[in-house]
């Protein structure tokens, strides 16, 4: 042979292998041939390892509350703006006696009926190569918005009382007719509601958008300060106090945390016989492209006992009752880690 070129090897650089055949690439990491190397994921984490979260609160000056959450290369900004909704602008809103009011019915959710919480997710152009400018909101963005919306309401996180602006009419009857009937003292009435616009913007997206977005919502809600608002009867409008000292924070009910995991199967075909699988927590984009089945659990361990606030599982049959318990115990560890960060 005249060829003087070095003997061509049949090996690729890692990046080429990952691009050409992503599934065997991840499988080779999780199932190393040599016994000396530990099984890890392609990103160097072990299967049950989460990425380190970073949380920064109150970085937006014009929002009532804001948070930047970074989990690995996924970065989310959440800003919450509060606006006032006058009760007399609500179609069909009646000031009922407390016994017949709709709010006394079981399961009535004022924040939901009046749309007082308005979350919206935007996956910004350039946050990942999948998002081009000028595109309509992707299915992912719409799906995430819906999930955040329903979790906000189903978890009952925001106390409806925090969002009401009350007015106590002065008792004027005393001057004309003295102590004719004491029960006629005017009842306090709700004059307006706070509406929270929760805007979530992804600056960069590397997998696991829901967990990051939800952590950002929680952190921003904890950061919210609503100014003291009152009804001015002379001007017939709501006025807000300027002073920060009189503003107050929202009383959140609990601290739910979302944890997403994926199921990676040894065989690419979903109906294959090989049933080996790995549960990968906090997946990145590369792993999301290779797994069909995903599970998100939302838990709150605040009261000492683990309370589940949501399960969402689709796309496969691997996760049953036992596997779910394992995921919940992983989520409990993650709750401790994140609650430390969120409570500081």
């Amino acid at each position, binding site marked *: 042979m005249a060829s003087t070129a070095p003997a061509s090897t049949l090996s690729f650089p890692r990046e080429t292998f990952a691009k050409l055949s992503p599934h065997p690439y991840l499988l080779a990491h999780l199932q190393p041939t040599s016994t000396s190397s530990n099984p890890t994921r392609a990103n160097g984490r072990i299967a049950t390892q989460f990425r380190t979260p970073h949380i920064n609160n109150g970085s937006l000056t014009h929002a009532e509350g804001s948070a930047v959450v970074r989990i690995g290369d996924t970065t989310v900004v959440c800003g919450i703006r509060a606006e006032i909704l006058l009760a007399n602008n609500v179609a069909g809103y009646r000031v009922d006696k407390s016994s017949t009011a709709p709010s006394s019915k079981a399961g009535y959710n004022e924040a939901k009926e009046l*749309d007082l919480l308005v979350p919206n997710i935007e996956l910004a152009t350039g946050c990942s190569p999948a998002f081009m400018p000028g595109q309509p909101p992707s299915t992912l963005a719409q799906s995430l918005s819906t999930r955040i919306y329903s979790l906000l309401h189903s978890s009952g996180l925001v106390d409806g009382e925090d969002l009401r602006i009350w007015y106590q009419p002065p008792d004027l009857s005393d001057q004309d007719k003295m102590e004719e009937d004491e029960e006629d003292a005017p009842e306090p009435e709700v004059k307006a509601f706070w509406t929270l616009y929760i805007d979530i913007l992804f600056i960069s997206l590397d997998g696991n958008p829901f967990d990051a977005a939800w952590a950002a919502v929680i952190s921003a809600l904890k950061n919210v300060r609503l100014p003291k608002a009152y009804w001015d009867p002379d001007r017939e409008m709501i006025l807000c106090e300027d002073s920060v000292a009189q503003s107050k924070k929202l009383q959140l009910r609990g601290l739910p945390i979302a944890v997403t995991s994926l199921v990676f199967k040894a065989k690419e075909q979903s109906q294959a016989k090989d049933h080996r699988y790995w549960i990968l927590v906090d997946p990145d984009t590369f792993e999301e492209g290779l797994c069909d089945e995903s599970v998100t659990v939302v838990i709150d361990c605040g009261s000492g006992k683990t*309370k589940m606030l949501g*399960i969402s599982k689709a796309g496969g*049959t691997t996760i049953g009752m036992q596997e779910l318990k394992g995921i919940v115990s992983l989520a409990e560890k993650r709750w401790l880690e994140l609650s430390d960060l969120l409570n500081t």
Partner: protein
Amino acid sequence: MANSAEPTALLSHLHRTDGSATFSQNGYTVIGAVNGPIEVQRRDELPEEAAIEVNIRPSAGVGGQYLNVFVFLLDLTISVIGTRERHLESILQSTLRQIILITNFPRTLIQVTLQITSTPENATTGSKLVQASSNLAILPALLQTAILTLLSASIPLAVTLTSVLLALNSNGKSRTTFEAPTVVQFQAADSVHVLAFTSQGELLVAESEGAFTLEDWDEIYETAKALCCDETTGEVIMQGEAENKGSLMDFVKSTLEEKVTKDLHWKD
């Protein structure tokens, strides 16, 4: 019209589609149609499997993907319209991918369209039309319609599925489970759960909302599994109850048996 908790179904009643079904249960009625395998747009084409497209149309309001874009730009509060359907579509899409033998039809499209025609009316809080209740209540009806539609079209499936909606009230030690809850029960419940099982008894979809514990969920899982599939555990739990109340899997079977005997009527 009384909302019957008993499911009813009508198969292959639309003649211009490859398969169709109407399914009603618990006040929800969904018409489903499937076309496939058909030609796929180049950008959606998958080299090794069939692409699955699910379209869900709500009974009121715009669910359309393109209309929705403009709604988004106009008013954020309305943006909730349509996003719910996208979410349900993505759940259905990932579920149907698992049960249709997609690798048998590479580079084709299987298109499932589901039109919600009626939802139970909410007598107590006669308020919002579109976002009346949570997005979970409709999910079992959608899944069940989709599977009947696929069966009607004779699209090769690996397994079939059955799905139930359960509401749970849990105060302290005692738990009350409502099968096929009414709207009032649904809203008043501490937690609501949708579970779907394959015909082999594996958990395929699980969506839960509200506050509950892991033990509650275990019980829900067992109840749902008994309601959905296997006759053996079903009998144990249902012994005290009415005889005609078979599992949902029996319902799917008997619906299909009826259709097959009707189709083969000419042979006799």
